């Protein structure tokens, strides 16, 4: 930087001449040494008298010396990156040969972080394992954020379902929150042999935190896991997005104003053309069709930001599926309408207080036909939440909050022989509080508790939570976590019986994490204890079943994760392995057994290769899951047998046609493994006394996808410099 010029030099010379007489004035020498707590000298620290120009940088030995004309009481300041600033007020004459010891800044980047149970996808987060873009570039995920999370350890592959099954927990044990506020119906409906998808577009979120256990007291009503999604605070630019896909089309637009912005996107998906070209195992009368729209409005204030998010979607399909007990097949049809709105404000109140307030409303309507039965249900749910956070210092922070959940569920059942209406009204009030202590850059602790009162059960639950992290080396740390978690029984039980109690889990987690040079290694061992699980005595939950809270169980295991973005040029990959041992006695289980969604081994590899010459990113994703349990009625026992192992290899190719146009091609299960998710047995034995069976296969073994994505924005490639 040749900023300096002749003029400045002249000024300097002139000033020296001018100031020469004043130099004769009394000068006081300020000197001393700056070290870290362990005595190591700090080189390059900035030492100065506050509000003056007088100061110096420390040398290699941590020493400094400078002169000042100031007199009387002055404040000596010492600052250096990653250390807390030092301040000392005294008479200038005292600042001679002083020793300054700097305290490490506990908020600095290499400080310990509580990481037990948590995976983050974010830009600069210290515990981030995924980048926001990974969600859309993971080969097997097809742009679904839930699909991308299924390549992380702690999840089990339940291919026909598609929801998140975490550490031996059922999918309903995971709760999803957008901007801190709960989503009651996060998944799109599908047939029972095709995986569902998250309802929400991954492009609207810039932070995803996935916790597989031991999470904060802020989150309740989740036995196994929480998934936290944060919408983008401020979009980068005004733009229009157009997508044309083999399964539909989408349109999005973002507008920006000085303090606010508005985004919307709309999608139409129809599987009709795809099913016509590649017939699958379902006999479609009306192939899957969905229309969805989302909008986000954001407004910035001087001290905070307000966001409003709304999503609507409507889906329908009608088909006949193979059924071993019905030679003509089972007819199934579904119409679903879902509206979700969420408003939140976060800001500062001054004096180191921060506020987060939010509310969400969900309206969900399903019209389902199974054979002769018509089921029509409506869920109206709401969540209100207020959270306050006070920062006492860099080392102590306190969070307190209160929230209210309301659910009104009504279902009408009708068939040629019977008619019924049932449902429930459920209110849960909760308060929570949590304190963060950072003892040093090496040791941090979080302690919290949550109390919940259920109107329905007239019952109060108390859940303590705690976690501690200790840094064991420059790049490694150990965390432990404990917590009690409560969750009400799911709607399919509550609609028949409300005289129950909340179900409970306890988590014990031990985590080790090593992270350096774009490589992350994590290993986590856990033990989860289930109690108060719902039990009933009939084949399916029904009006006439007798219900109880007599179930219990456990899940324990080890999760491994390795990501390396550094060792091989242009290749980024991650590997996950989960070992799970779980048994439970619940629902109508005659004995404790491993449920069919809790298989022992899950392994996945995701790789991405960037080839600049081809302007392409190639992706690969391989998933392996050991066999899942099922009951063979021809043999004694319950859930006593296992299906064969699951394998799937998916590939994708993203080609950047230009800055703004992307062509995306993907194939799921390229090698066409014939996977079996379980078996359906005949209700009655054949003439030889044998129960016949049918393999539960996915609707389709492979899936092909082609999409063209075009973004139109003002910057693009157009060049306004021509006007010069």
């Amino acid at each position, binding site marked *: *930087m040749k*900023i300096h010029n002749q003029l400045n030099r002249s000024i300097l010379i002139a000033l020296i001449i001018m100031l020469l007489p004043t130099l004769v004035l009394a000068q006081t020498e300020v000197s001393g040494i700056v070290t870290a707590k362990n005595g190591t000298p700090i080189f390059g620290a900035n030492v100065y008298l506050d509000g*003056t*120009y007088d100061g110096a940088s420390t040398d290699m030995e941590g020493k400094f010396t400078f002169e000042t004309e100031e007199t009387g009481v002055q404040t000596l300041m010492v600052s250096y990156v990653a250390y807390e600033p030092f301040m000392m007020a005294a008479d200038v004459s005292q600042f001679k040969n002083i020793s300054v010891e700097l305290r490490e800044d506990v908020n600095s980047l290499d400080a310990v972080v509580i990481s037990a149970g948590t995976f983050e996808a974010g830009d600069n987060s210290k515990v981030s394992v995924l980048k926001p873009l990974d969600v859309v570039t993971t080969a097997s995920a097809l742009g679904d954020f839930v699909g991308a999370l299924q390549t992380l350890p702690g999840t089990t592959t339940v291919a026909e379902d598609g929801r998140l099954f975490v550490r031996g927990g059922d999918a309903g044990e995971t709760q999803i929150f957008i901007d801190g506020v709960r989503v009651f119906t996060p998944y799109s409906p599908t047939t029972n042999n095709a995986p569902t998808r998250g309802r929400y577009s991954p492009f609207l979120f810039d932070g995803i935190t996935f916790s597989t256990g031991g999470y904060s007291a802020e989150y309740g009503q989740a036995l196994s896991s929480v998934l936290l999604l944060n919408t983008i605070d401020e979009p980068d630019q005004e733009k229009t997005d157009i997508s044309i896909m083999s399964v539909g089309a989408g349109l999005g637009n973002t507008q920006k104003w000085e303090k606010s912005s508005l985004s919307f996107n709309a999608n139409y998906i129809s599987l009709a053309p795809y099913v016509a070209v590649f017939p699958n195992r379902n006999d479609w009368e009306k192939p899957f069709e969905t229309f969805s729209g989302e909008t986000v409005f954001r407004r910035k204030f001087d001290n905070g930001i307000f966001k409003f998010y709304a999503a609507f979607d409507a889906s329908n399909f009608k088909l006949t599926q193979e059924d071993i007990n019905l030679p003509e097949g089972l007819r199934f049809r579904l119409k679903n309408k879902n509206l979700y709105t969420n408003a939140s404000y976060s800001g500062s109140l001054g004096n180191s207080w921060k506020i987060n307030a939010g509310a969400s409303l969900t309206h969900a309507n399903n019209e389902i036909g199974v054979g002769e039965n018509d089921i029509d249900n409506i869920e109206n749910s709401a969540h209100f939440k207020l959270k306050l956070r006070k920062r006492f210092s860099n080392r102590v922070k306190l969070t307190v909050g209160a929230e209210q959940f309301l659910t009104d569920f009504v279902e009408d059942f009708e068939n040629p022989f019977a008619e019924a209406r049932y449902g429930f009204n459920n209110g849960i009030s909760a308060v929570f509080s949590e304190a963060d202590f950072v003892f040093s850059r090496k040791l941090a602790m979080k302690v919290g508790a949550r109390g919940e009162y259920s109107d329905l059960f007239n019952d109060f639950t108390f859940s303590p939570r705690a976690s501690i992290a200790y840094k064991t080396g420059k790049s490694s740390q150990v965390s432990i976590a404990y917590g009690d978690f409560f969750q009400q029984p799911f709607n399919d039980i509550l609609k028949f019986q409300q005289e129950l109690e909340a179900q409970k889990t306890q988590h014990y987690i031990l985590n080790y994490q090593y992270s350096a*040079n774009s490589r992350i290694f994590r290993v986590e061992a856990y033990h989860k204890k289930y109690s108060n699980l719902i039990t009933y005595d009939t084949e399916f939950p029904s009006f006439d079943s007798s219900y109880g809270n007599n179930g219990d169980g456990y899940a324990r295991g080890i999760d491994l994760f390795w990501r390396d973005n550094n060792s091989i040029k242009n290749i980024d990959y991650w590997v996950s392995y989960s070992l799970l041992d779980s048994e439970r006695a619940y629902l109508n289980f005659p004995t404790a057994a491993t449920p069919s969604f809790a298989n022992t081994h899950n392994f996945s590899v995701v790789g991405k290769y960037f080839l600049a010459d081809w302007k392409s990113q190639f992706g690969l994703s391989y998933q392996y899951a050991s066999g899942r349990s099922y009951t063979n009625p021809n043999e004694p026992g319950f859930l006593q047998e296992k299906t064969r192992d699951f394998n799937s290899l998916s590939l994708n190719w993203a080609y950047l046609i230009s800055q703004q146009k992307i062509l995306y091609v993907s194939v799921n299960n390229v090698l066409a493994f014939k996977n079996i998710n379980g078996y359906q047995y005949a209700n009655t034995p054949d003439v030889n006394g044998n129960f016949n069976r049918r393999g539960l296969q996915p609707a389709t073994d492979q899936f092909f996808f082609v999409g063209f994505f075009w973004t139109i924005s003002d910057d693009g490639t157009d*060049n306004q*410099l021509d006007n010069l």
Partner: protein
Amino acid sequence: MKNLLIIAIAFISFTGLAQGKYEKGMTKAFELWQNEKPWEAANMFERIAQAEMDNWLPPFYVAQVNVINSFNEKDETKLTAQLKKAQDFLNDAKALSKDNAEILVLQAQLYTAWVVYDGAKYGMTYSQKIAQLYNEAYKIEPTNPRVAFGKTEWDMGTARFFGQDTSKFCEDLKKAVALYETYEPKGPFHPQGGVEYARGSLEQNCKEE
């Protein structure tokens, strides 16, 4: 003649000692910087920043030293600390001077440092922001050479990445370099650097011309 000039300036500087202090400090800081002591210069700018609370230039230069020295930094911890510090001081500068093209350009350069460090990780998120910042800066001050040059160089890099013809940018790059000759800094110690780098870039990117 030279002495006359010195005396003339000396009289001008005589207007106030406080201002002289500022000029002395800034001059000293630039000297340190030129003598390849960027961190001492940054410390000096930081000291001036805390004494001159309503001047955007000192925090701007603290940020600039940190950004420029981040481009070749391979140690992630160090890089992150420097860019975080740069961002803090840049935020201070932003609060003092609104709609300032120089600050927007430096913000774009700060993001560029992240992209240069790990394109796969930061490329997608920051490249749109960078393009947007140059556009904004260009709207404010199209004849600022750092704006014109930064914008063209960024657009050119993007075009090269996508295998497009970059020769059409050479004309603009030349114009941008020429702007350095005519651009008048807005006041003492206002940004005026970058011409050597711009010339080098022009030579490298537009060889055939």
